[in-house]
């Protein structure tokens, strides 16, 4: 099996933990506007635990995602915990037995991951949730792949789509999660979960983009 691929994935998780820690307060503030102000703290806590759990990891590639998924499920709580838990467990199942990730492989993995999020949270596009960042990312990735793009190119395409999707949550009225309690008052605020999702995919593009270039 390809140890480099596993390292790249672990590196993605490490960089994501760093990126989330850097954005912790911003994510908390976004969540304070339309939720309860803890999304940054939840994600930082969860990813720090995931990174610790990965110390000296020497299993296979899918095992990384399984470990991260279980850690988030047991350490994050709130809505984000089970949702991101399902996300990474979805990646793990799709990549079972894979020993490297190519554009096509990642595309189907992301598809499974997003499906897991929707199964657990039942959110539709436009509900002003992380799904609004994840679905466009999934689709952009699929298109890039069918265009025969490189993994690096495909990853940045999906990262840009996720960022655009997160931006697009601002005017939306939330229909799921805490923010939905605000009704109309939730419009005009960017969704924290979509923001953290875009951050994770941006980090993937940066980290893997380099390693695969």
């Amino acid at each position, binding site marked *: 099996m390809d140890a480099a691929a596993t390292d790249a994935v672990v590196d993605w998780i490490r960089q994501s933990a760093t990126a989330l820690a850097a954005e912790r307060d911003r994510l*908390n503030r976004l969540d*304070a506007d*339309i*939720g*309860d*102000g*803890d999304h940054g*703290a*939840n994600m930082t*806590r969860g990813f720090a635990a995931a990174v610790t759990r990965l110390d000296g990891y020497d299993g296979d590639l899918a095992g990384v995602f399984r470990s991260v998924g279980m850690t988030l*499920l*047991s*350490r*994050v*709580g*709130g*809505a*984000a*915990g*089970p*949702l991101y*838990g399902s996300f990474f467990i979805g990646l793990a199942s799709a990549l079972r037995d894979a020993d490297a990730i190519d554009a096509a492989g990642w595309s189907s993995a992301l598809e499974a991951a997003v499906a897991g999020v929707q199964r*657990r*949270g039942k959110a539709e596009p436009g509900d002003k949730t992380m799904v609004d960042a994840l679905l466009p990312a999934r689709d952009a990735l699929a298109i890039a792949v069918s265009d025969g793009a490189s993994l690096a190119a495909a990853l940045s395409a999906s990262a840009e789509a996720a960022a655009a999707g997160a931006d697009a949550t601002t005017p939306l009225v939330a*229909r*799921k*999660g*805490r923010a*939905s*309690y*605000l*009704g109309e*008052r939730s419009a005009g605020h960017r969704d924290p979960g979509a923001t953290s999702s875009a951050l994770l995919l941006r980090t993937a593009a940066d980290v893997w983009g380099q390693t695969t270039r």
Partner: protein
Amino acid sequence: MKKLINDPEAVVREALEGVAAAHGDRLRVAYDPDYVVRADAPVSGKVGVLSGGGSGHEPMHGGFVGPGMLDAACPGAVFTSPTPDQMLAATQAVNGGAGVLHIVKNYTGDVMNFEAAAELAAAEGIDVASVLIDDDVAVQDSTYTAGRRGVGTTVLAEKIAGAAAQAGRPLADVAAVATRVNAQGRSMGMALTSCIVPHVGTPTFELGEDEMEIGIGIHGEPGRERVRLEPADQIVDRLLEPILSDLPFARGDRVLAFVNGMGGTPQIELYIVYRRVAQVLGDRGIAIARNLVGNYITSLEMAGCSITLLKLDDEMISLWDAPVDTPGLRWGV
């Protein structure tokens, strides 16, 4: 941020250690995963009653663990729902063979985590029933929202379901009475001030010196509307109207009237609130058969209150009056 804490990240852990030190004779506290459980759990043949939620609402839920109420409670991080591994471990700890009831407040996070826990417990062959509490009339219940939030009625459901379990009722009955309590309970809250989540360090929202938030949630979620400060009687009327018209409560009904403090409001003010509640219900011919006044489901140091009305029947009354022996509610023992 001015708080009696050591480390913002260690607040829940250290508070649990304090609970263990104070109530070790009656409660046991487990760590990693965290839960508070009756010292004598599991009670064989008795339905286990389990609840949980974010911390910062004390005495709910940990303060309601004990004979006649909860068998165990799972504390999450402050204002963040606990996780499936906690719920699974607590479910195993209180399973006396008659199954376990999960009392779940209707928040996306709580619901999803309890769902995952119930799947895991079922996989281990534990009989689990879940009852969702969604009594907050401040939130319009519609398919376009996550539905109503679980607030004050949770305390009443935990007491009444706990008494039913203590009486040896089977899981289906205990779940049924909890469901009925939720169906007949309605709440609404308000805030005079915000609160500060320790690991955040700044107020969850800002309120002007002359403003108040009506329809606030118990996690500092902004409420229904922000209006100018008013005298207590008008505030009570604002909270009661949607509660009364929602069920609706009618002349001749017997209710439990629950005036709850959000944590930073002194008792003397809660009784001024209760005074008006009693006046209004009296005028409408609604009889207050039981009442509860105090800080039971709080939002850290938030100043404000919530009002819960529960339409009672004879069974609920006798279960409410049944002995309860917890740090937060104690009588008949």
